[in-house]
């Protein structure tokens, strides 16, 4: 069976009208900041495409002085992550600060010496989250989320870590669309073109963790969740069966990460199911 990777027919249908999408997403950020009465946003800059795009959208929405960038490296983080994050901060002209998370993380693992790479990576992601929320409190700002639709659907995140935010402009953008908007906004090519990585351990890449590439993930997820095809119908279109099954399994296994408050309802006026009070 032929595998139709990078099927242009699917990726073309995913492509956005970039000026309209940027106009909508910047108005989203402006609206959230204005209605919450806060001064701006804080964003963790990893040197990767997602946080770079989120920061660039925020700068368009609010102006650079109201977007506070934080570089939060661990001692094993790649030098490239830090230098690319700096490049983005300078490219966007936003105030930025580097806080090394190694002392906090290492203090914990000094008493939890058996932790594997997964636990260590989660701890780093959550350490960054606590710093971002603390800095947001200090600055009277909101925490800008940077998770995209592909990784949210695949569950490729740390609960209450990198998936925690006050607002997320990227959460309904597939990775292909993230790349498209980043190029449209003129972000430096060395950031746009590099292979995505959570950089929780040396040599890590997202696509290595998945066992498939982003183009395939975007196409399969779009066919499953936007178009409503069954997994078998996706496979019939020529996608590798093992990859499709793996994507389906990831989504099922990690969907709990998308519903963060599971409250036992006793009263008939539970704060979630019976009191769905929307935020403006």
């Amino acid at each position, binding site marked *: 069976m032929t595998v139709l990777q990078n099927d242009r027919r699917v990726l073309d249908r995913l492509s956005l009208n970039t000026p*309209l999408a940027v106009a*909508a997403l910047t*108005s989203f950020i402006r*609206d959230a900041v204005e209605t919450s009465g806060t001064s701006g946003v804080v964003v963790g800059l990893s040197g990767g495409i997602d946080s770079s795009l989120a920061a660039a959208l925020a700068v368009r929405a609010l102006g650079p002085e109201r977007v506070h960038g934080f570089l939060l490296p661990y001692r094993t983080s790649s030098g490239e992550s830090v230098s690319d994050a700096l490049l983005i901060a300078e490219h966007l002209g936003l105030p930025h600060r580097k806080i090394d998370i190694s002392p906090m993380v290492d203090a914990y693992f000094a008493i939890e010496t058996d932790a594997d790479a997964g636990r260590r990576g989660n701890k780093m992601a959550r350490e960054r989250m606590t710093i971002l929320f603390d800095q947001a409190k200090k600055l009277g700002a909101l925490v800008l989320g940077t998770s995209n639709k592909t990784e949210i659907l695949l569950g490729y995140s740390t609960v209450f870590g990198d998936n925690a935010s006050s607002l997320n402009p990227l959460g309904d953008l597939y990775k292909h669309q993230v790349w498209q908007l980043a190029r449209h906004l003129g972000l430096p090519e060395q950031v746009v073109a590099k292979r995505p990585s959570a950089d929780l351990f040396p040599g890590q890449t997202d696509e290595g963790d998945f066992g498939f590439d982003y183009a395939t993930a975007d196409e399969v997820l779009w066919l499953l969740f936007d178009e409503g095809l069954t997994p078998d119908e996706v496979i019939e279109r020529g996608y590798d069966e093992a990859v499709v099954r793996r994507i389906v399994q990831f989504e099922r296994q990690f969907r709990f990460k998308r519903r963060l408050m599971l409250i036992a309802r006793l009263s008939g006026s539970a704060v979630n199911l*019976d009191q769905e*009070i929307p935020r403006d």
Partner: protein
Amino acid sequence: MSEPAGSPRLTVGLAQIDCRLGDLDANLERHLAWIERAKAQGVDLLVFPELSLTGYRLLHLTTRVALTPGSPVLERLAEAARPMTVVAGFVEESDRGVLHNSAVLLSGGAARHIHRKLYLPSYGIFQENRFFRPGQRIDLATLPWGRTGVLICEDLWHPELARRLAVAGARLLIVPSAGPGRIGGGDVPASHESWEMLCRTTALLDTCWVVYCNRVGWEEGSFYSGGSLVVRPGGELEARAPFLEEHLLVTEIDLRDADRVRWRLPLLADERTDILGPSA
């Protein structure tokens, strides 16, 4: 019903506003400000979007912002509207304590006409059936310039309603909306493509003016795309407001244009209700 004696020419204003969700006081103030703006531009008939006094995605806030038709909020609005005619959206509590998604037409300091939304979308992201009950009838409203009908958002997607109003003599259809926006690859928001097609088709087949007032702004991460429309009898686009931003769209219209089109294109006069065959 006799035809009103006034001139058939009027200036329509579409108040493409954002709303504060669940905040009656803030929205009333916004209405009063836009009424003054419209008066300054010579507007005769000013239309606000669906649920303009409350915001759209109310969920369990619905009961907290319900108004009876005689409430002080609507009295104040009716008084401020003079000498204009104003259409505004609100949560109506009927004298039987039932909640409706309603639009009120205010003229001469009082409520002249109330339309209760007949089709409550309850699919996809819509949940109106959980919180509202549908209206049971449609009526014409007689304005100084001619007969008109009000249909709220989803009502227009059931074309027999617009047809009935037009056959009964409406030369103007007023369509307050809160249509969630979607952006894809097209030149305009994907959600707007459908709306423009629908408004133009309605104006073509029912040979009447269609004024569609959509809102803008964000609620719980979903936006309204604006792009409010004035469409001529016969389907030609007369005016369109910009997307994604507040705007007062002011257009002079002549209701006699509907008659002139109907003489050339007598679709309504030819309408038959006596054709035998399958029924719904």
